[in-house]
């Protein structure tokens, strides 16, 4: 194929594939991770509405459940295909990582495959079963979706956690993996807190996303029971998840402090080891590695790291390891900024849920203020940003390692120099995919609204329409 060689040689010479591979992985994962919360928590919200609908004979709740399940069909499909792309990318972008560590890293995925399978099967039965299955039988076909969603995301996070805490592998002198303890791989020490952090995040982000859509509707004057119910289900899920997340996140930060001190130094932007370390809000490292700007709060980083020893807690600095074993200064800046964004937005969302709880406790109603609805309307977007920021902290903070202290990113990547082309292609494809997903979901919402006005929408569990097929009894 000399024609191809002739075409590609001048174009591709000297293109380092590593930054392109990193960009493509970051972009495709960053896209996929937005769909994860919906896949995990939307099913639960749908089931809450479904349960209420059947138990209390609530037509609005049933309509919500039915429409949410149709949106879920779209977001699950997009999540499934973008997830499939990730499994291709392990081979396409990180073949040397997979070749070296696949025997360990792959183990959690074998179980993730199981859960994903269950999810795909039951989501189909649930979405397509509205008219033909009996109400409670139909409800129960939805429950495995919620369970599989949680365990599926725990499995994926277990694989990612293993990259942070690569335990359970024995390596011989030539670097070949000779023995794998699958339990130690799956239940590595980073897994419990990372998985909890992700699952709770899924409920937090999913809850705020759903609530924000109905908040917008209510701000536009659609203050009917249907919108109110949609808002309350979403926001309540988020309002339960948010305080829990504060605790889980704090625990995870302390795990990082104990086990990945260099990542922690990047998070807190600590150039040199010492005690009485200030918590610097924003600011950045300059080219010589000094902290510039920002708002330092004296001693706080030390206190938060270990409240027991207070300001005398010693925080290991970036200088504790050679410069090629820690994130670069600009990576530190990314990690630190992402951390501030995640914690800052998380705190704002936490305050918003306090407002919500206070209003329920003292007034037995939603907050009346328009400002609450306005804040709730942007909460979905803010939650997504903090999710992305949190993921950035975890991934960029691990640099330069792909497997912590065992393999560097540059040793893991493909040698294919054409990656920049696929990156551009992926970028175009995903931007189109994202835009189309939003357009399609909006179009569905408008159609539901029109049908509602025209009162065309049948009751979900109503008598089945005369169909061209003979009725087959279930069970």
């Amino acid at each position, binding site marked *: *194929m000399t024609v191809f*060689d002739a075409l590609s040689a001048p174009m591709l010479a000297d293109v380092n594939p590593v930054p392109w591979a990193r960009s493509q992985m970051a972009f495709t994962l960053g896209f996929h991770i937005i769909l994860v919360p919906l896949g995990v928590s939307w099913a639960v919200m749908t089931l809450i509405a479904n349960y209420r609908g059947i138990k209390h004979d609530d037509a609005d709740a049933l309509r919500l459940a039915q429409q949410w*399940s*149709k949106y879920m*069909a*779209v977001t*699950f*499909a*997009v999540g*499934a*295909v973008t*997830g*499939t*792309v990730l499994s*291709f*990318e*392990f*081979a*396409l972008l990180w*073949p040397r990582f*997979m*070749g*070296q560590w*696949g*025997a*360990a890293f*792959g*183990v959690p995925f*074998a179980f993730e*495959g*199981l859960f*994903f*399978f*269950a999810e*795909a*099967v039951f989501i*189909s*039965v649930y*979405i*397509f*079963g509205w008219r*033909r299955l009996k109400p409670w039988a139909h409800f129960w076909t939805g429950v495995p979706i919620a369970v599989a969603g949680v365990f599926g995301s725990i499995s994926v996070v277990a694989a990612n956690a293993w990259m942070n805490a690569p335990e*359970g592998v024995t390596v011989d002198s030539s670097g070949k*993996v000779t023995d*794998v303890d*699958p339990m130690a791989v799956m239940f590595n020490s980073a897994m419990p807190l990372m998985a909890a952090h992700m699952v709770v995040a899924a409920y937090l982000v999913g809850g705020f996303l759903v609530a924000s859509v109905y908040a917008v509707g209510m701000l536009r004057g659609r203050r009917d029971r249907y919108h109110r119910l949609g808002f309350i289900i979403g926001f309540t899920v988020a309002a339960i998840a948010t305080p829990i997340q504060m605790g889980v996140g704090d625990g995870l930060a302390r795990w990082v402090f104990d086990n990945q001190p260099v990542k922690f130094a990047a998070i807190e932007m600590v150039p040199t080891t010492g005690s009485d370390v200030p918590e610097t809000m924003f600011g950045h490292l300059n080219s010589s590695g000094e902290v510039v700007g920002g708002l330092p709060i004296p001693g706080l980083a030390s206190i938060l790291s270990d409240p027991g020893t207070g300001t005398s807690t010693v925080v290991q600095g970036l200088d504790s390891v050679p410069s090629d074993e820690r994130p670069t200064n600009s990576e530190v800046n990314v990690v630190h900024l992402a951390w501030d964004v995640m914690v800052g937005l998380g705190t704002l969302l936490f305050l918003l849920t306090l407002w919500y709880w206070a209003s329920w406790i003292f007034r037995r109603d939603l907050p009346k203020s328009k400002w609450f609805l306005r804040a709730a309307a942007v909460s979905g977007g803010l939650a997504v940003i903090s999710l992305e920021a949190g993921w950035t902290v975890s991934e960029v903070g691990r640099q330069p390692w792909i497997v912590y202290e065992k393999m560097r990113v540059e040793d893991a990547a*493909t040698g*294919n120099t*054409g990656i920049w082309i*696929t990156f551009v*292609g992926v970028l175009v*494809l995903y931007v189109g995919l994202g835009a189309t997903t939003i357009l*399609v979901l909006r*179009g569905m919402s408008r*159609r539901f609204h029109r049908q509602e006005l025209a009162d*065309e929408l049948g009751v979900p569990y109503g008598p089945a*329409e005369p*169909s*061209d*097929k003979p009725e087959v009894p279930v069970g």
Partner: protein
Amino acid sequence: MSTTAAIILFAAVATYAIFGGADFGAGFWDLVAGGTDRGERPREVIDHAIAPVWEANHVWLIFSFVVLWTCFPEAYASIGLTLFVPLTLAAFGIVLRGASFAFRKAVYRTRDQRNFGAAFAVSSILVPYCLGAVVGAIASGRVPSGGRAGDPWDSWVNPTSIMTGILAVCVAAYLAAVFLAIDAHRLSDEAMVAYFRARATAASVVAGITAFLGLFVLRSDATFLFDGMTTRALPLVILSAIGGLGSLWLLRKRSSRGTRPAAVAAVGSLLLAWAVAQWDYILPETLTVAAAAAPTGTITAVLVAAGLAVVVILPAFILLYVLDQKGLLPEEGVDTGSRSVEARSDSIR
């Protein structure tokens, strides 16, 4: 131990080839169904048949990848490095196809449906071709061992890969037409039964000829595989031919029973013949299954996962198929009457 892992890998690949293949093939018939009016009814049958099951069908691909990278990481690395281009194309096609199929179900305007439908149908051909070419590349020994990259172009643009790519498209179309004829029968739509039966007949002839000519391609281009196919795998090759001819005969006889098992037997034994012919290599002539296998702990874990899959997932999968086949999973609860009214009023505008 490694043999068991290889058997699981083969089972996953074969299941994907049959279920995923039928799914891609349905997209092929969607593409060639003609204009909006003429193609309306076939497209409805196709939609009806694959909408509830396509995601589950494609989980087999992910499962194949997972077993490959977990149990045979070195082979996975070599494949990823060498076959970068066709795998990338296949990934793009899968995104386009899955998303546009879901979107087509979700939009109600004819123009939108047509655009998403076109993306769906074109990628339904691209993906099986690319994956078929990947199989050809591996089977003809063009992927080197040791996590090294083979030739980025010759590895998949060669006689064997082109043949296997075309064969994959033909086999997918064949399986799909056989399945769709049965779906149409269940819908009591005799016109569509005849429609898909005719296409199944044509596709079985084309697929059979391609497979037969393919043997000659292998003789000149992939001698190791050819030797295997004509010696120890020969009974399976013959079985595949019998299955194919049998399904052709049943189609001619307008029998509604037996065509599906015959078609599955034809495709299944062809795939098994490939596996037997290249045994005990995972990458022919460079890397054996035993040498590529991951440590025992890993394989045990995968066996446990596979066992759970059989116990937990298989019943669920069968439930989905039974519900689908009984017609218990219609349009996702949408009032079909209002849908066609709206589509019609849109096309008038």
